[in-house]
């Protein structure tokens, strides 16, 4: 009985122009979106592989610890093709340094896009669904009940010996299924487009998430449809129902998504970026002061001890006395550098925290509008929210600790290997600095020119000497958990899902309750 009614609803919906127009547009636009998203993904995979190669080369070539500074590079996520969120498809990188906590994922965007491109918004499949399919759900639902009353067909329908609950449920089911059909077509097409890209490889976990994304979207469409059917059951006439639905769509979609972030920026006391810059300058100024104070008490050897080839941040062929002095300098400064890193991070965190809170507010309050709620839920599934970015950031910080531990274990800070790769017993460029006059040190003096030629020759030999490379075979690998597990992700979705399900349920109940006592005249 109910199924024949569902079939009737389905056929009526599918045969209208409105559905076919929307179907064509949805499929074209989501396909288009996925094509550019997928191309963008390929580009990012290429840049990820580039970065990875550079990193590997660096680790193979590096000869002193100071130049090591490894970078964690995380691969772009294929699910972001569909749901870009905050993270997007760009690979994340986190550079590990001693006197800094690294740029980290927190600042991820600044080093990839120019400031100009940041002014632009990026589309994804989720946006097309949120805008277009939800609109279709409204158009199918707004005259579902009052429209039939106005045309008089409702009266006819109710003269049949069918329970009213069946009629309204059939309307709901029929409408929802007719929405699922275009969505499923678009979704499958987009999946095929993505899979046609050889770079896209979904893991088992990704497939599960894609399945959940499909279910989530079906639920969202059902929610919007039942909400507009509820409006249809309560509204005076179709015109009023349409106006209510359209404006709810406009305000809840476009309005909310542009007003909420703008307002959230002013609910928090931002600390001006300049404040951090000033603090940072102050920390460096103090550092230079401390260093020069130490240098006053421990005067460095004369210039002649420092002659050598000092290029690319690496010293070679300096006098051992200079190296001894640098080692002591290093041992003294390392503690300060670590302190500085902590202080600078705190200063930076002080300016970041309010900004992060602002962005969190948007995610948190998204539940108030069905459209933004769906978007944020989808981004949580695809692991592209701010939360996921920070999750990766914490894993990066943990690795920094491990890495520093490793350097300490190697006594890297206290040895000359920090700044030079000269082997013990290396002949310096100036063997007897104490007997050198300033005249001899002039770069155009014959003595210096002769020594310089010697050093350049030695430099060539040293560059080819594989024995100078650092042995990094025991360096700890980044193996931290930097992405939420599926259970974790679903956990963060609880509130949004609850709101979605409750409003869906409430809309269905209200519609049914109203329809049972509906006057078809």
């Amino acid at each position, binding site marked *: 009985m109910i199924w024949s009614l569902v079939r009737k609803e389905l056929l009526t919906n599918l045969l*209208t*122009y*409105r559905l076919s*127009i929307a179907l064509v*547009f949805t499929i074209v*636009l989501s396909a*288009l*979106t996925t094509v*550019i998203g997928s*191309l*963008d993904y390929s*580009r990012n995979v290429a840049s990820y592989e580039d970065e990875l190669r550079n990193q590997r080369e660096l680790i193979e070539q590096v000869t002193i610890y100071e130049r090591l500074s490894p970078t964690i590079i995380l691969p772009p996520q294929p699910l972001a093709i569909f749901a870009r969120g905050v993270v997007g498809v760009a690979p994340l990188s986190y550079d590990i340094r001693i006197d800094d906590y690294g740029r980290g994922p927190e600042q*991820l*965007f*600044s080093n990839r896009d*120019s*400031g*100009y*491109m*940041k*002014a*632009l*918004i*990026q*589309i994804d499949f989720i*946006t097309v669904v949120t*805008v*277009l399919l939800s609109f279709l759900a409204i*158009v199918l639902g707004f*005259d579902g009940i009052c429209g039939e009353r106005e045309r008089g067909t409702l009266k006819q329908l109710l003269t049949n010996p069918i329970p009213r609950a069946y009629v309204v449920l059939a309307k709901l089911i029929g409408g929802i299924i007719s929405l699922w059909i275009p969505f499923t077509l678009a979704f499958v097409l987009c999946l095929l487009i993505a899979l046609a890209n050889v770079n896209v490889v979904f893991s088992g976990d990704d497939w599960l998430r894609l399945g959940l994304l499909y279910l989530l979207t079906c639920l969202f469409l059902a929610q919007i449809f039942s909400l507009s059917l509820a409006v249809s059951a309560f509204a005076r006439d179709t*015109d*009023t129902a*349409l*106006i209510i639905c*359209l404006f709810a769509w*406009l*305000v809840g979609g*476009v*309005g909310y998504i*542009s*007003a909420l*972030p*703008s307002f959230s*920026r002013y609910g928090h006391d931002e600390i*001006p*970026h*300049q*404040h951090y*810059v*000033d603090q940072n300058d102050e920390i460096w100024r103090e550092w230079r002061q401390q260093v020069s104070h130490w240098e006053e008490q421990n005067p460095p050897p004369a210039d002649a001890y420092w002659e050598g080839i000092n290029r690319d941040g690496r010293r070679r062929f300096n006098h051992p006395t200079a190296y001894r002095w640098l080692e002591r300098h290093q041992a003294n400064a390392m503690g300060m550098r670590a302190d500085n890193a902590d202080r600078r991070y705190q200063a930076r965190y002080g*300016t970041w925290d309010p*900004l*992060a809170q*602002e*962005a969190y507010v948007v995610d948190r309050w998204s539940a108030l509008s069905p459209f933004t709620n769906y978007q944020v839920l989808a981004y949580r599934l695809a692991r592209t929210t701010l939360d996921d970015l920070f999750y990766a950031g914490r894993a990066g910080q943990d690795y920094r600790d491990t890495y520093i531990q490793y350097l300490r274990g190697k006594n890297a800070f206290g040895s000359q290997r920090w700044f030079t790769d000269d082997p013990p017993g290396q002949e310096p460029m100036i063997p007897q600095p104490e007997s050198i006059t*300033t005249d001899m040190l*002039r*770069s*155009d003096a014959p003595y210096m020119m002769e020594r*310089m030629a010697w050093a350049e020759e030695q430099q060539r030999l040293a560059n080819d000497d594989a024995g100078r490379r650092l042995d990094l075979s025991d360096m700890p690998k980044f193996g931290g958990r930097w992405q939420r597990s599926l259970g974790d992700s679903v956990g963060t979705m609880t509130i949004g899902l609850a709101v979605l399900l409750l409003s869906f349920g409430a809309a269905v109940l209200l519609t049914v309750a109203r329809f049972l006592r509906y006057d078809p005249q």
Partner: protein
Amino acid sequence: MWTIFNLQLHDNLRSLRFQVSLVVLLLFFVGNGIIYSMKIERLVSEDAMIEQTMERRIEDVSSVGAAAETWVQILNQETGTEFISEAGFNWFPSVLWVNPEYGTNLGYQTLRTTNNWMRRFEVLDWTLIVRYVLSFLCIVLAYNAVSGELERGTLRLVMANPVPRAAFMLGKFLAHLATLVVSVALGSLISLAILALGGLVSLDAALWLSYMTFLLSATLFAALFLLLSMGVSVLARNSATSLVFLVTIWTLLIVVIPQASYLVATQTMQLDDSRWDEMNELQSATWESLQREGSVPRAMEIAAADGYAAERRFARRMREIDGQVNRLRDQIEEDRWEQFRVARRVNLLSPGYAFQYSVEALLGSGLQWMENFGRQGHRYREHLQKFLRARDESDPTSPHIPFLQDFMSQEELDPSLIPRFQSTPVPLEQRLETGLVPITSLLVETILALFFALWAFHRAELSGGEQVG
């Protein structure tokens, strides 16, 4: 025609959808007023802080030599019309680092607080309200302008009168346009009032000019969407079909195209880092060759012995590469601009952005605002160099080797004499030049929409009959 106009005007004012539209528009504009009140206040205090640090940098300068090696910051002043059109103000670099010394150069930086994590949202300025909300309201008001009357059968009654079809259509169109434009004017005045009450904008002639620019462009844009809606309304003959068709078009033009421009631009034009490498290589190669030939700055007393020969050679070489380094630096920025221009061209496919860029161009904001700033930065650097050079010339004890700290005048320099940067807005002729393409496309699109609507009215069978759908 004016009878139709009057009739429609009255219909509009009485209709629920117009009343709701008005409320929604006003809500958006009030939101804009409140947001920008807070924003401008924050901006003023932040800019004061930035300028203070900038001033401190200059005041720390003690001599001509020291000034030659000081990095000075200059700040790009806001146009004061950000509440009308943000035009990237949030994201574009705000500061230029300027160093008079040769061989180093200018660098752009963002110093105003920006929240990168909020990148996926637009800011609620007037142009956003027009682009999204007003265009949508045009559709809501006019999607059944004809199909509705067709369905209700009232069209037959109207057509029975001796009214030319064009007059009928134009009357309806003008009535819709008038109601919408008055609503927008009302809303923007409320927003302006909120800002003016907080003392955050001064209602001077320049502002009213900007206001009229905005209102005129918004009128054109609204006309475009109204005409499009009315034309579709005739052709579709069925209100629901017309609505779905219009909203899908709206989604394509207003949502999809502008949001796809980022991806298209980053695909078609990728920034290569090789210019940075080229620049670094040029600098280090020069440095190395100078080192090899022994032409590096030495201690003062050694250098004085041979009349600063090595230092002079050094300075000459640095001056030679100065132009090259600066050109490379400019090309890096130019590449970024060019990538953004590609995105702008994609955006221009959307009438929403034809409107947006028309307003931006005439207000002197957007990319031209950055380009203008870059040019001023160069001029300021030259000015600074000339000033320091002149001061150095007047000191007989100085070795006169320009822009080498230790070999310039060490005489005390009163920091208040150092020229300060004063930014100037984009000149009018340049605004018009930038606006040429977007304004023309907005006009052409509106005229096309007019012809489309007229054509639809003339060919359509308006006498009613059975319904389709």
